């Protein structure tokens, strides 16, 4: 089973956790450097980007209200917006720093893997430091043993409320 098997049927089974870690660390770095077009290239066309409401962390998009439930047209619009000087909340840009840890492969399908990880993100701007803490619940399509694309990118916050952060103006 698993490691020795090649071929399309269970390509996900050959993925090493360290490869997923490298992918998530690179992604975090791309975001902290505000290279948003590079970040967008990590998504499949039918991907979603979700942040559930803090009082419904198990929320289902389309049934429950979310903080963010982007389909790709909206996510592309979000990136276009964030690159504009008229996205005032991020113009001038904040500084962000992301710590991603406790990365685990929690499931495998024929061509994709489920990944869980923890995150701690600081956003610093105008003398204010806001912190976002939570867990990632991703589904990644396996492109190669060390390369992936997001199918589902889900950030589940631990906070009771966006207080005092007030908003999610960066990518979580």
């Amino acid at each position, binding site marked *: 089973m698993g490691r020795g098997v090649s071929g399309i049927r269970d390509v996900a089974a050959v993925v090493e956790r360290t490869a997923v870690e490298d992918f998530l660390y690179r992604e975090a770095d791309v975001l902290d450097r505000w290279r948003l077009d590079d970040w967008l290239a990590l998504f499949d066309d039918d991907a979603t980007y979700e942040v*559930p409401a803090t009082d419904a962390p198990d929320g289902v998009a389309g049934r429950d*209200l979310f903080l963010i439930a982007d389909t790709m047209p909206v996510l592309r619009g979000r990136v*276009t917006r964030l690159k504009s000087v008229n996205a005032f909340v991020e113009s001038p840009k904040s500084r962000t720093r992301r710590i991603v840890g406790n990365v685990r492969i929690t499931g495998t399908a024929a061509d994709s893997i489920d990944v869980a990880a923890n995150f701690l993100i600081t956003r610093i701007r105008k003398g204010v430091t806001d912190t976002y803490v939570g867990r990632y619940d991703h589904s990644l399509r396996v492109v190669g043993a060390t390369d992936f694309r997001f199918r589902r990118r889900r950030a589940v916050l631990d906070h009771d409320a966006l207080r005092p952060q007030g*908003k999610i103006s960066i990518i979580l």
Partner: protein
Amino acid sequence: MADTIITDDLSGNGALVIDNRDKGVFRVNRAAMADPAVFATERRRVFDRVWLYFGHESEVPNPGDFRTRTLAGRPLILSRGDDGEVRIFINSCPHRGAEICRETAGNGKAFHCLYHAWSFRNTGEVLDIPGEDAFGGAFDRRDFHLRHVPRMENYRGFLFICFDPDAVDLTTYLAGAGEYLDYVADQGPGGMEVIRGTQLYSARANWKLLVENSIDFYHTVPLHKTYFKFLEDIGADISGGVGGRGYDLGGGHAVVCFKAGWGRPVARWEPSWGETERTRIEALRADLVARYGERRTEMVADWDRNLMLFPNLLINDIMATVIRQVNPISHDYMEITQWALAPKGEPRQDRAGRLHAFNTFLGPGGLATPDDIEAFEGAQRGFGAWREVSWSDYSRGYFGEAGRPDSEKQSSHEIQIRAFYRRWSTLMAAGGNLPGWGGA
């Protein structure tokens, strides 16, 4: 020491509001946002006297359901008792003050205080007091039932509370705004419900800045140009703009009405929804006409509106229906809670479309709201200089709102914001001079 809260003297002279009907000038002193003494007075003279939106009855659908939340400094419990009645209790043990409910939501027959193990039925009566026989002769357990908020009324599912036992009844309080609540409640033939998932957020600014922002046309295009660019990019027709009209509904309440380029789930079709959906939307509208007639249906279905119920409730009835409650915490910090309201039994696909539209535009993770927060948090920082730059202006359209053609007066209405501040200043004045508000 200020003698007046409102004046028609353009110099202000210690007033918090200038309202000059001859010159058409309306200004609010920035101390109203920046001075902690004004905030302390506002708590007593505004929030302790007015009706406040607390929640929707659909949030506790079953006997035993409860939710806890804090409003205007009070910890409260929304409870549906075993008898089916909705009540709102003070979440503080009548014995020694501990929270008797420490969860945000749940279902149960009784509330148990952790401190001395007193317990209370979900209808409020004392259930058990351990060692009750040790209390003296004057002790009467009936003195220790859970305390209700002084006033509570249910307006078509919208639950309001008031901390003033002598306040007018809710319908009187709502004045012309009750009719606009009806237009929201009318949308669900089987009633309306709050959708699961709450946007709980905040802003580092005075609460009034969010209220005025929510009914302000003037900022929409300049502040949200990236959102309108997004709408254009996905093919929406926004050529009609977002102008409209503002109305003073009496009692400090106001509404802005407009017809924007997006569709309304009840019930205004837009081309991107497709022909199948068009048939369904037209049937929804026909059903409204059968129930309410054409004129009222036009108000329910065709018009977008942002309703402001004095002092702190905003209902944006647009591409989705938003209940937005503003909870002042300090002069420069507010909590905001936002729910999505929809007809009960709405088909799954339509519910999904509604939520998609809601999430894209509205809320702290949307493409618009974060820039609003950026704007009024910056204003709050600016108010640090309120002694040097003392007045914010709300004079647009003071004379012109009635006389000009609609095409020219888009975005020029500010009567809705003046209605808010007039009511606010009247309440603030009702107790005499403001203690501690000392001017410059």
